[in-house]
């Protein structure tokens, strides 16, 4: 309780309050505009937050992360276009409800389910904190190395059908972080004699190029488009009342969100699918799923909104991000010399609680904002796509150039922008590159640190947690191989789908 109060004291500042409003409302708007998404927004805003206090900067970014999925539900329900990729299943039940003239009910239910999931995720995080504070210090260099390795393996295997491409891109990310002057031996690595490469390839430059610039290019090379959602009439508070009828589904879905959010590489997609399947199997009307089922809508939205809080668990406790957005947030921690990991729980637990409380407050702000401003949002999401591309380019410039005032960074970001566009158009994942950079850096540092105590390879796994992680790695690889063999034996062709083509993740 003392720590929670200390955390609340950290938030009692006018700049944090502004950050809470800016992050949460900004996140909703960004999430609601198809073609932007939280990754683009966080990438653009990252450098701007470096000059702010860590709690202020992280509050803005958390606000965007936690609230974007609320906003993403709006175009999913109204125009069958998910604002963020993780709202895809929301569209499958929300849009048929809109076609039946129940847009108001669907939107309201989506907001209330999102709120339920968001708050559930944060409460789980708060309850788990004492356990995390106990477990985290058990992780030394070897354990963190193995956990990062497990993270990379999971991220690669998550891209089923494109595992080879995902592996290649993850390894490209690992390679990128090795470029430049080696911090221990002071030798150049892959600089090709070019001075600007000596300081390495900056993660923010790569992130901005791959997520933000590529999205701008993506929008600019395609014909112009402008969504035209119909306004929503009536009070949106009714959804909370209806949600209580589906509280079992909402709670189980949020539970899936929490569990899956902690696992790198899977997150919202798996959580949504598992909760959707659970809801359908236990429903009295399973045939209505996919044709406007309120239960399906609740399952999908509650699950994906429980994920952001859970995704903070590996980041805060071990300093290991499980997906692109938390990887970006990690750089904010590093810039301010607040190193997430075991030490954070021992030395800055008030800071951790302040982040939790900020997450709760932003969920309240978002839901109140959406209930009062949904029709305003339907106007905002009508921005023509090519104009949006111009705006993203303008904003991205600030992010890239303000880092070091370097034209080389801008050129590099533009190059990664083109690469990102190619990957998006090819339906190939971008996230493995970013996670490869972050986790690759962690693995290199931790392996070097572990070398002092490692005489034989078996010493890497001679401690209980290290051994458990090693067994999990073997298990994951074994299960993947088994799935491949079964697929090959079954020789079944899956139907093509465009779920990943939005490529916002």
């Amino acid at each position, binding site marked *: 309780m003392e720590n929670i109060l200390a955390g609340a004291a950290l938030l009692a500042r006018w700049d944090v309050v502004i950050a809470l409003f800016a992050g949460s409302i900004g996140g909703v708007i960004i999430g609601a505009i198809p073609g932007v998404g939280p990754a683009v927004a966080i990438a653009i805003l990252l450098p701007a937050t470096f*000059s702010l206090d860590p709690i202020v900067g992280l509050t803005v970014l958390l606000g965007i992360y936690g609230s974007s999925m609320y906003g993403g539900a709006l175009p999913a329900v109204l125009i*069958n276009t998910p604002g963020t990729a993780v709202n*895809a299943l929301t569209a*499958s039940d929300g849009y048929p409800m809109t076609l039946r003239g129940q847009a108001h009910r669907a939107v309201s239910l989506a907001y209330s389910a999102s709120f339920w999931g968001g708050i559930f995720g944060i409460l789980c995080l708060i309850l788990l904190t004492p356990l995390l504070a106990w477990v985290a210090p058990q992780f030394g260099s070897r354990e963190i190395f193995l956990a990062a390795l497990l993270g990379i393996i999971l991220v690669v295997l998550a*891209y*089923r*059908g*494109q595992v*080879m491409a995902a592996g*290649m891109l993850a*390894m*490209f990310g*690992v390679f990128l972080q090795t470029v430049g002057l*080696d911090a*221990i*031996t002071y*030798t*150049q690595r*892959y*600089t090709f004699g070019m001075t600007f490469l000596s300081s390495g390839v900056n993660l923010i430059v790569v992130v901005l190029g791959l997520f933000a*610039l590529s999205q*701008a*290019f*993506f929008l*600019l090379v395609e014909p*112009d488009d402008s969504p035209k959602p119909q306004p929503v009439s009536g009070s949106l508070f009714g959804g909370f009342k209806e949600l209580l009828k589906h509280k079992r589904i909402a709670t189980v879905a949020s539970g899936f969100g929490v569990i899956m959010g902690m696992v790198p590489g899977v997150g919202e997609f*798996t959580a949504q699918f*598992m909760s959707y399947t659970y809801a359908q199997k236990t429903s009295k009307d399973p045939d209505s799923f*996919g044709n406007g089922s309120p239960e399906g809508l609740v399952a999908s939205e509650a699950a994906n909104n429980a994920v952001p809080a859970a995704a903070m668990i590996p980041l805060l406790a071990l300093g290991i991000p499980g997906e692109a957005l938390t990887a970006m947030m990690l750089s904010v921690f590093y810039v301010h010399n607040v190193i997430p990991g075991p030490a954070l729980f021992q030395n800055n637990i008030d800071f951790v609680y302040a982040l939790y409380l900020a997450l709760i407050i932003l969920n309240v702000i978002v839901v109140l904002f959406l209930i009062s401003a949904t029709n305003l949002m339907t106007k905002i999401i009508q921005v*023509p796509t*090519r*104009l949006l*591309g*111009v705006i993203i*380019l*303008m904003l*991205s*410039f*600030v992010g890239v*150039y303000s880092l070091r*005032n370097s*034209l080389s960074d*801008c*050129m590099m970001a*533009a*190059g990664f*922008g*083109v690469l990102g*566009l190619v990957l998006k*158009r*090819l*339906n*190939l994942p971008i996230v493995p590159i970013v996670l490869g950079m972050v986790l*690759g850096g962690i693995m*290199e540092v931790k*392996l070097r640190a572990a*070398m002092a105590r490692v005489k034989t390879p078996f010493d890497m796994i001679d401690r209980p947690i290290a051994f458990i992680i090693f067994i999990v790695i073997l298990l994951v690889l074994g299960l993947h191989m088994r799935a491949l063999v079964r697929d090959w034996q079954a020789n079944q062709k*899956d*139907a093509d*789908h465009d779920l990943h083509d939005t490529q916002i993740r």
Partner: protein
Amino acid sequence: MQKFTTLKTLFKRYRRPGDIVFAWFALAVAVFLLSQITQQVQFKQGGKFGSQPQLWPMVSLGLMTVFAAFHVLGSAVSERIAGRWQEVGKWLASIEYAVWFVIYAALVPKIGYLPATLAFAALLALRAGYRSKVVLGAIALVGLATVVLFKTLLQVKLPAGQIYEYLPDGLRLFMIAYF
């Protein structure tokens, strides 16, 4: 919206036109980088294997090459999807906008953040096909708001334009500090 019957279906990604072009390109890059390892990274005599500066470039590029080779193989044995070169045309078309971005970045230290942003916004909007005065005015306003937010309010580190040196004293300092 597709219906998903299994978790595997949900996660599965499918190939798109141009996949094999990218696959070959990625393999060529991986092989080239790997071939440079002895020139581009030094081997530290007497150092532990885990601490060698060569270790991670070698591991990452080695695995990247293996994955890239399998990706090429996967693309080669898959059914051909029509529209490969039209797709490559789209990739090349995006380079134009990358050039726009670099020119914008090069102009900021010369003509200043505010003038460069307004010019960039208006010209690129024209290039994108917008002719309406309302849209052009709106995009200029967004440009102005961006400058005010980041440079004037948040004081993000951006250089002052060389052109500002020609302004009268008071205005010059004001422009350097805020725009």
